[in-house]
């Protein structure tokens, strides 16, 4: 399953620059809002589901080489964070859905924890 299929199935808003998301295959999923836990627990090339929208999420995703961040519950990263994500090549997606529901949908699509 590629990232474009996930974006379509979950009706995600794309916050960062558009690219060919069908070429990106997320390896696994992870969720936490504690960035220290993410740094210790998220697997490379995974999708990270969080309601944290602070600028530090970009650095964490870049550090771990994550595939994409899905920001839930309408949390809005500021313009500087989005611009930093574009610089770092981090894909940020957004939804008004809650993290629980997003994880459930990703699981139904076949994604598993890393």
């Amino acid at each position, binding site marked *: 399953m590629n990232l474009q299929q996930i974006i379509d199935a979950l009706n995600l808003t794309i916050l960062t620059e558009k690219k060919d998301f069908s070429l990106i295959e997320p390896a696994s999923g992870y969720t936490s*809002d*504690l*960035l*220290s836990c993410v740094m210790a627990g998220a697997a490379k090339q995974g999708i990270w589901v969080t309601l*944290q929208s602070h600028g*530090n999420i970009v*650095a964490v995703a870049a550090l771990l080489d994550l595939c994409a961040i899905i920001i839930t519950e309408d949390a809005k990263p500021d313009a500087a964070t989005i611009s930093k994500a574009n610089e770092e090549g981090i894909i940020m997606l957004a939804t008004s859905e809650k993290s629980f529901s997003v994880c459930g949908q990703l699981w139904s699509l076949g994604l598993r924890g890393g």
Partner: protein
Amino acid sequence: MKRFRAELHLHTVHSACAEVEMIPPLIVQRAMDDGINLIAVTDHNATANIAAVQKAALGYDLTVLPGMEVQTREDVHCLCLFDTLEQAAAWQAVVDAHLPNLVNRPDFFGEQYVVDETGDFIRSETRLLAISTNISLDDACRQVTELGGLFIPAHVNRTTNGLLPILGFVPQGIPIAALEISLHITPDQALSQFPQIAGYPLIQNGDVHMLDSMLGANEFFLEDVSIAEIRQALKQENGRSHKILLT
């Protein structure tokens, strides 16, 4: 230069989690007994008891700085310290506008009392205070600094409401004046567990919710007490200095 022993993180009965003994005259008395001559009153998202503590301290060799422990959108606790009640009031207005309108449940969280300088009851705050405001840490830091205040993320090492567990590392590009470490860790231990804090001035406080946790662990040498003087001391500038006393 004058020497100050400071406790810069102290709650009154306005904070639901503080003990009922945290009333102005007892706070002043304990500070005096412990040789502490500088305190900051830092209730959760609130400032209503600061003036009462300042009045209670009149006639004593004790300076009471206005402050607040704000809870940011990210769930991070940060100390905001000011020179004047007017600055604190301006910051309180911002916080009030960004605080979810929830009602306190005293049976669960505790009472939030506003008191006078003798500790007598004035009113009980019904709005739930100790929750996240919808202000990002970065915005809070910029706004407090623009108002002339010091912005110091609190107990940064603590898993609950501490900057480092929640945000992983210290955000860059914002005017963070210092980082507070909790009373359960020494500065050396903090630096070894969290190498990402190297280079930031560290302060240590008791996060005082009961009189017995007053530490007075900060030693300052200042010309007099002001935010500008403390700012210089944190940077060890112009003969001002600060260090953490091992308690």
